[in-house]
């Protein structure tokens, strides 16, 4: 029998290994975090306050491109209507938060993960500037050739400067190099509030990334190369509200990046996240009395997955409940371990798991406190009901009702005291708590207070242990990436199911045998 169990356990582990192997090799899933991958998690927090009228916030959202993968996006709508739409000319992805009447403060949250790659381009040396740019490029590129309000590419001064810089040269890569060098060398960098336009930058020769880029774009357009601004974020582990802009020129069929501020010529490093194209703003809003935003950026551990048979394909808001489900077998494993190897008594098998899951939402200390309060008052109520001789089922129902009243009362009190996360105690397993109260009372009457206390302490011990194991972040990441690991959990449970050794508490229970043995010798 044992051999069959070991074989089955081995088979399960092998199956899990094979499935994970297939995923890694064919699904492109990555087993471990490597810094070279440049995975980031970005949370954007937007604090707004309304004026008591119609309010609208528009923000450009990052888009999936060959060099940047966006995944695990999560939107918090803050009770506003939320929609996403794509712009036609720029192709920007816009998120809109709207409210018909906004008269209080809200916090909008948008978070996503991204994997970035660096990109470098080689400009063909024999490529020459077209004689007639308007005729040379298709209709959809025309907006990137024309002058705009802040990019005055047709200004006579601009034309004059361009001639001075490039002379008679017609080769694209030389022209671009000269324009780039002019902006890098002649325009001094200085961070400022509100960027200058191209003309002003040219006059003052001092600008931030916005002014520098506008000048570069203006000169490129004047030379007859479609050019546009790109806005984005420079990634590092930080909290910041500064975005960055650079330029993109259309050269022989592709958009080639140029960053004059940080001196990247036809190259984009792997910590640049693109958010929008064109000379636009990251955020536009209407009807707000206050707006502030910041990005919180940190390195991401979970690799992106492009596999139709993985949990990643589920909609984002379902993923969190799946993560929740994945933890239940882990909790069951902890409970099984404690019961078969240590011999700890608990109230019911699944109570510790559900309690641990609830503690994860509330935080351990407050969770234990709330549980203690609920069980204590439930137990007193149960005593009162017992003296009134209430039948079992109605009595249980009364206790459930009381538990719920209590939890609601605690919610209101905690909210007024400013403890938001207590609200999660609505996740408390009410029915299980009710049964725990009932069992506690019965054990207390039948087996004594000590036995009741022991089982209670066991339940808390096991649920705290399960809580700490469920808190391991790597466990979440790996379980979600490879739910096949549950087969390994099953294999471990099978082995525990054939564990015939002593429970640790039995060594304590049989400790008196030492005495018996000593008597033998005497």
């Amino acid at each position, binding site marked *: *029998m044992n051999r069959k169990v070991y074989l089955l356990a081995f088979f399960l582990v092998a199956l899990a290994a094979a499935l994970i192997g297939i995923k890694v090799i064919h699904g492109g899933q990555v087993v471990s975090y490597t810094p070279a991958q440049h995975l980031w998690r970005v949370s954007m927090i937007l604090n707004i306050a309304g004026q008591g009228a119609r309010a609208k916030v528009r923000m450009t959202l990052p888009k999936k491109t060959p060099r940047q993968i966006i995944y695990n996006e999560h939107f918090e709508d803050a009770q506003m209507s939320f929609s996403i739409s794509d712009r036609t000319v720029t192709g920007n992805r816009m998120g809109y938060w709207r409210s018909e009447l906004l008269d209080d403060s809200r916090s909008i949250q948008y978070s996503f993960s991204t994997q970035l790659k660096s990109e470098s381009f080689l400009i063909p040396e024999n490529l020459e500037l077209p004689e007639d740019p308007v005729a040379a490029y298709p209709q959809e590129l025309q907006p990137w050739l024309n002058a705009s309000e802040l990019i005055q590419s047709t200004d006579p001064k601009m034309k004059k400067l361009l001639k001075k810089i490039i002379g008679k040269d017609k080769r694209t890569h030389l022209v671009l190099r000269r324009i780039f060098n002019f902006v890098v060398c002649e325009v001094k960098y200085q961070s400022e509030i509100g960027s200058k336009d191209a003309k002003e930058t040219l006059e003052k020769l001092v600008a931030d990334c916005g002014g520098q880029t506008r000048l570069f774009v203006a000169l490129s357009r004047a030379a007859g190369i479609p050019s546009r601004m790109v806005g984005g974020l420079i990634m590092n582990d930080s909290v910041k509200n500064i975005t960055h802009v650079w330029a993109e020129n259309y050269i022989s069929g592709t958009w080639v990046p140029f960053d004059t501020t940080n001196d990247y010529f036809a190259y984009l490093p792997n910590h640049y996240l693109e958010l929008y194209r064109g000379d636009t703003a990251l955020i536009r809003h209407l009807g707000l009395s206050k707006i502030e935003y910041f990005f919180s950026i940190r390195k991401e551990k979970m690799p992106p997955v492009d596999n139709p048979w993985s949990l990643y394909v589920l909609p984002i808001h379902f993923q969190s409940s799946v993560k929740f489900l994945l933890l239940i077998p882990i909790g069951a494993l902890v409970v099984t371990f404690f019961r*078969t190897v240590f*011999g700890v008594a608990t109230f019911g098998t699944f109570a510790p798991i559900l309690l641990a899951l609830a503690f994860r939402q509330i935080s351990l200390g407050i969770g234990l406190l709330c549980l203690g309060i609920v069980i204590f008052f439930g137990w007193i109520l149960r005593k009162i009901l017992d003296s009134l*001789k209430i*039948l*079992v*089922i109605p009595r249980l129902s009364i206790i459930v009702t009381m538990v719920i009243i209590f939890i609601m009362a605690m919610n209101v009190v905690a909210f007024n005291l400013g403890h938001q996360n207590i609200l999660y105690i609505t996740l408390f397993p009410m029915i299980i708590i009710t*049964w725990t109260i*009932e069992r506690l009372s*019965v054990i207390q009457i*039948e*087996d*004594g207070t000590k*036995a009741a206390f022991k089982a209670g302490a066991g339940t808390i011990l096991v649920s705290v242990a399960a809580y700490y194991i469920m808190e391991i972040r790597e466990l979440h990441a790996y379980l979600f990436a490879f739910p096949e690991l549950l087969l390994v959990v099953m294999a471990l449970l099978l082995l525990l*199911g*054939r*564990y*015939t*050794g*002593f*429970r640790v508490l*039995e*060594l*304590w*229970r*049989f*400790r*008196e*045998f*030492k*005495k*018996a*043995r000593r*008597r*033998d010798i005497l």
Partner: protein
Amino acid sequence: MIGFKTVRELGLLGMNRRNAEYLLPKNERRLYPLVDDKLKTKDLLYAHQLPSPELYFVIRHNFEVKYLREIKFLKEFVIKPARGAEGRGILVIQGKTGDQWRKASGASLSMGDIEYHVSNILAGLYSLGGVTDIAFIEYCVRSHIIFRPVAFQGVPDMRVILYRGIPMMSMLRLPTRESDGKANLHQGAVGAGIDILSGVTLGGVHRNYLIDHHPDTNVPVAGLRIPFWDEILETSAKVYEVFRLGYFGIDFVIDHLLGPLILELNARPGLNIQLANREGLLPRLREIDALGPGVEDLKWERRLEISRKIAGKTRGRF
């Protein structure tokens, strides 16, 4: 604490090994209800003319609670849940004064208290897994006179554990003040090992501690000769033929008038019997397994012989 190694050397049986190697393979699942439901056990015992306390009547539904009025003519009786776990929900009434009944502990109960207790039983408060249950009222056993000096209230019982039909180890369980007249070790009763050969008690155990004297009466628990011992062993071996469980315990009581009666069977007997006997179960279990297949089908006389032989071999720890 004692080490893993010592435990193994002593041949102690742990909970995991009991479950995985003895209970699960040797006890057929379909036979459990016969043992877990005390009414079914009683029926079977009665059908095979094996002695057990007389059943007075059964209450299956809440509306039948009103028939409890009949008990007003009874002075002594026991109310039990048919599927009570670990001795829970057993109410022993030992006398009546006026309208009030008296419990073994001396506490008095009204008709309403008893009705409430019965409806709790019916709702499954005391049963395994909380399933709805049946209550029954049976003859109240009065303990044999020999136990009077040592027992504190309640009725002492004898547990015999059989493995493959062979009585393997036994103990006397003495109620204490702590156990409220119940003979369950985990509720605080005292256990004293019984030598299978002679039926004489050995030293005792109370709450995992080895003791020599009863904690309430302070009378030595060792050296008590169990009356009807051979009859008890003989009945045990015969009970096996009816229930065919590979590993189970039989609880006997000795009534002062009726002699040995089977109180209940237990398909998951506890492990503290080892402490009561100061001896591990494993050597005896292995001894029986060494006899090979077919032990179960031997005649009861033959199985008793084997039982005595094995008990004699491993005796001598005192």
